[in-house]
C-alpha cells in the first residue's frame, strides 16, 4: 500500500467514524449540536477530498474546543485514539516532504501496535488478570456490561480464564503479525473481531470504528518496513 493511498484511506475512515460519533451528539444539547455539526461538515469535506489539508486542520483545532467542552475525551480511549489519528494525519498532510509525512503517519502505525502490546503488558503483570478474576470483576460489577444478564458470565471462571489469556496472548503477540502482509491481515481481522465483541458486550462501539480507521496506517507501515 502506498503512502498516498494509506493516508487517504485512513482519513476517509476516520472522518466516517467521527461523523457517526458526531451524529450521536446533535440530538441532545445545543452547545454540543453546534460543535458536532461543524465537525460533521468538516468530515464531509475530508471524505469528498475537498480543500485538503485544511478540513483536517479545522478538525484538529475543533478537537481542542471539544476537549475543552468535556474537560477531556468524551469517551476515554476511543476518543484518544481518534485524536491521535486526527493529529497524525493533519501533521502528515502539512509536511512538505514525503519523508516527514512518513514520520507522522508512521507514528500512528507504531502507536496502533503499542495500543495492543501495552494493553497486554499491563494485564499480564496483574495476578487478577492471569487468574481470570479481573475479567470476572468486569462482568460482575463494572459499569460496562450492557445488560444484567451479561453479569452472569462472572460465574463462569473457566471461560473467563480462557478469555483472559486469549486476550493477553493476542495483544502481546500482536507485533509478530507484522512478519508478513498475510499474517498482518489475519491479525487485524482477529483484532477487529475483538473490538466487535467489546462493542456488543460493553457498548464500546466507538472503539470498533476508530481502531478500524487506523488499520491502513499499519498496513502501510508493515509494507514500508518489511515489504
Amino acid at each position, binding site marked *: 500500500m502506498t503512502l498516498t493511498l494509506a493516508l487517504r484511506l485512513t482519513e476517509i475512515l476516520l472522518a466516517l467514524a467521527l461523523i457517526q460519533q458526531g451524529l*450521536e451528539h446533535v440530538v441532545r444539547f445545543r452547545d454540543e449540536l453546534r460543535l458536532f455539526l461543524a465537525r460533521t461538515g468538516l468530515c464531509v469535506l475530508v471524505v469528498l477530498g475537498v480543500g485538503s489539508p485544511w478540513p483536517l486542520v479545522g478538525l484538529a483545532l475543533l478537537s481542542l474546543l471539544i476537549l475543552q467542552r468535556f474537560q477531556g475525551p468524551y469517551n476515554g480511549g476511543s476518543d484518544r485514539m481518534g485524536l491521535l489519528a486526527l493529529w497524525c494525519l493533519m501533521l502528515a498532510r502539512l509536511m512538505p516532504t514525503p519523508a516527514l509525512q512518513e514520520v507522522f503517519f508512521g507514528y500512528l502505525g507504531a502507536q496502533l501496535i503499542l495500543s495492543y502490546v501495552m*494493553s497486554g503488558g499491563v494485564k499480564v503483570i496483574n495476578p487478577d488478570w492471569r487468574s481470570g478474576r479481573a475479567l470476572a470483576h468486569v462482568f460482575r460489577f463494572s459499569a460496562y456490561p450492557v445488560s444484567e444478564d451479561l453479569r452472569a458470565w462472572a460465574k463462569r471462571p473457566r471461560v473467563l480464564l480462557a478469555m483472559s489469556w486469549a486476550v493477553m496472548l493476542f495483544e502481546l503477540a500482536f507485533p509478530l503479525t507484522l512478519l508478513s502482509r498475510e499474517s498482518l491481515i489475519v491479525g487485524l481481522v482477529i483484532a477487529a473481531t475483538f473490538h466487535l465483541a467489546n462493542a456488543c458486550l460493553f457498548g464500546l462501539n466507538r472503539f470498533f470504528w476508530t481502531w478500524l480507521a487506523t488499520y491502513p496506517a499499519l498496513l502501510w507501515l508493515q509494507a514500508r518496513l518489511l515489504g
Partner: protein
Amino acid sequence: MFRLLLPALVPSWNFFDVIAPSPRVEYALMDSASQAPADWREFRPRPQRVSLATMAQRLLWNPGWNESLFLVSCAERLINQPTEHSRDELFKRIAADLAGGAEAATDPWLCFRLVFVSLERDEIAREVLFQSVPRRLGEIAVR
C-alpha cells in the same frame, strides 16, 4: 487545552489494567432543599437483556450508552479531581432525562449521589462517596 490533548498524542494504552470500584449514579427528588433525600433511584439502570439485533444497531447508534460512559468518567473525576464541570454535567444530564421522561418530575429539587460498587471478600459492596447539594430543577439548563 494542550494539557488535555497530550495524553492522546502520547497515550499510555493501559486499558482495564486494574478493575477499580465502579460508580453508579443515583438521584432523588425533594419538595425542598432542606428535605433529606430518601427515595434514591438509579439513573439509567441497565436493561435485563439486550438482543443481538439491538447490539448490532448500537454499533451505529449508541448515544445513550456513550453518554452514560461519559457520566462514569465525570463521577470518577468528581472523586479524584472534583470540579464544578463534572457536577454540572451530572446535574444537566439527569435533569434532561427527567424533563424528557414520560412521567413529569413533580418535586422541584434534585440531588444525586455516587455509589461506588466493588467486591469485598467475594461480596458486592456499595459505598456512597459523594452526595451533591440539591439544585432546583427549573434552574438546570437542559437544552
